[in-house]
C-alpha cells in the first residue's frame, strides 16, 4: 500500500520510498530530500514538504515541530533563463556586448 501512496508528485516519491530512506539511516529532512529526490521538481517542495514531514515525524517517532522545513531555494517559481538574462544587475565581463540580441 505504501508503494501506492505518492508524497511528491513532481518526482514520484512514495511513502514506501520514504520508509526505505529512513531505514537506511537518512532521517534529517535535508538528507531525505537528497536521498529520495522529493521536493526537487517544479514545485520545489511547495506541495509535498508538509506531507513528507508529517510521515517523517511518524517514522522517526518525533513531534512534527521537531522537523523544520528544508532550506527553500530561489527562485520562487521556475523562471526562464532568457528572462533572468535581462536583469540589469548581471555582471558584465570585458567581452559582454552592451546590448545583447540573444537575450
Amino acid at each position, binding site marked *: 500500500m505504501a508503494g501506492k501512496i505518492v508524497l511528491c508528485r513532481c518526482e514520484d516519491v512514495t511513502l514506501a520510498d520514504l520508509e526505505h530512506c529512513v531505514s537506511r*539511516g537518512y*532521517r534529517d529532512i535535508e538528507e531525505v530530500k537528497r536521498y529520495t529526490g522529493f521536493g526537487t521538481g517544479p514545485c520545489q517542495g511547495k506541495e509535498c514538504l508538509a506531507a513528507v514531514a508529517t510521515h517523517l515525524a511518524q517514522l522517526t517517532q518525533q513531534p512534527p515541530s521537531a522537523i523544520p522545513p528544508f532550506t527553500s531555494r*530561489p527562485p520562487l517559481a*521556475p523562471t526562464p*533563463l532568457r528572462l*533572468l538574462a535581462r536583469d540589469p544587475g548581471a555582471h558584465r565581463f570585458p567581452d559582454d556586448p552592451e546590448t545583447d540580441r540573444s537575450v
Partner: protein
Amino acid sequence: MQPVFDEEEDSSRADVSGEIRLPATLEGAGPLPERAEIVIVGGGVIGLAIAYNLARRGLSNVVVIERGYLAEGASGRNGGGVRQQWSTEINIRLMQESVDLCRRFAVDLGVNVWFRQGGYLFLARSQREVARLEKNIAIQNRCGVATRMLDPGQASDIVPELDLSGIVGAAYNPSDGILFPWPFLWGYARQAAAHGVRIFTQTPVGGLEPQKTGGYIVHTPRGAIRARRLINATGAWSPKLAAMIGVDVPTYPIRHEICSSEPLKPFLRPMVSELTSGLYCSQSMRGEIVGGVTIPGHESTYGMGSTMQFLATYARRLVRLMPILGDIKVLRQWAGLYDQSPDGNPILGPAPGHPDFFLACGFVGHGFMMAPILGKLYGEWLTGGAPHEIFGRYTLARFSDGSAAHHEKEDFNIG
C-alpha cells in the same frame, strides 16, 4: 548591493540523527566512544574517502564526526565535474587515477553514482586563452591524457547548440566526466561503516585539548573522544578547526553559486566551460542543466546565501553561448564554499610541530573530484605505506619555509 537570500550557516535543526545507522549492526544512536585511533573531523567526501580507505586497509577504531548532516557542506553543493585537464603534471596524474577510481566506484562501493564520461569542453574567446589551453594540453598529453585543441567548427560537432560567435578555439578531453555527488558520499559512508568506521552527524567540535602524550581530546555536545591522531577534513572551515590548537592554515572561504534547471531530454554530452567568465554547465543524468559562473572580486565569507546577480549573470552568459536554452527554466539555486588556498593547491599531512594533527584541505572547489585518489593515498600512508609525493609537496610548511615558491601554482581552478 544585491539582496542576499540568507541561508544561515548554523541551523537550529533538531537533533534527529546521531550515529549514522547504515548496516543493521550499528543500529542506535549513542554517545561517542571513549577513544579512537583516528578521529576524522568532517563528513564530506574527503573525510569519508579517507575513513573508508583506512578501514578497508584494516585500521580499526576510526571515527568520523560531522557538524551537520552528510553532504551539508561543499560535497553536497558542487557541480559533480571530474576532469583531468589541469595545469601541473602532479595534479593531472592524480586526476587520471581519480577517474579510474570513479569508473569502478559503482562496483567497488555498491552504489550507482551516475558517473558519465561525456568529456570536458573548455572554450576560448581570445588567442591568450588559446595559448593557456595549449600550454596545458602539452603537459596533459605528456601524461597520457588525450586532450586536443579544436577549432570552433570541431567544437560545434560535439555541441551543435553552441553559438560560435566569439569562440576562437576549444580544448576537449573525451574521458573527463560528471557524477552525482550525493550517492558518492553515501557509498563511502556505507562502506566505511561496513568496515567498522563509526560516523556521527550533528556533532560539532567545540574544542580540542592536546594531550601531553600526544593526540587530542575532542570535545563535542555528544561527549568527548580521545583521538590518537586527528584529521582536519572540514573544507572551508579548516582554518577554524586548526585555530583551536593555534595552527594557522592560510586558506579562506569563497562563496560560489550554482543552479539547476528543469530536466530535459539528454542532449548535452560534455561539461561545457568558457574561460572568460568561468561559466560551466553540464547535463546531469536526471536531465537537469547544472551550472555556474564566476563573478570576480567576491570577498571571503562564510555566508551561503543566493543572489539575483549570480542568476542574472549565469543566465546572460549561458543564453549567449547556447541560445537554445533561453526558454529553459531555472528551478533552484544555491551556494557552497571553496576552501581557497594561496597557491591553488591542497594542504596535506601533519601541521608543523603537531605530528598528530593532519590536514586534508585547501582543495579550491575541486576536492570532490580529487577525493577518490586522495582518500586512497592517505589511507595507504596512514596504515604504514610509503607516503606519496603529494604529502611531501603539499605541506602546510611550504607557505612558511619558502618552498611554495619552488612549486608550480595550479592556475586552472575554473568554475
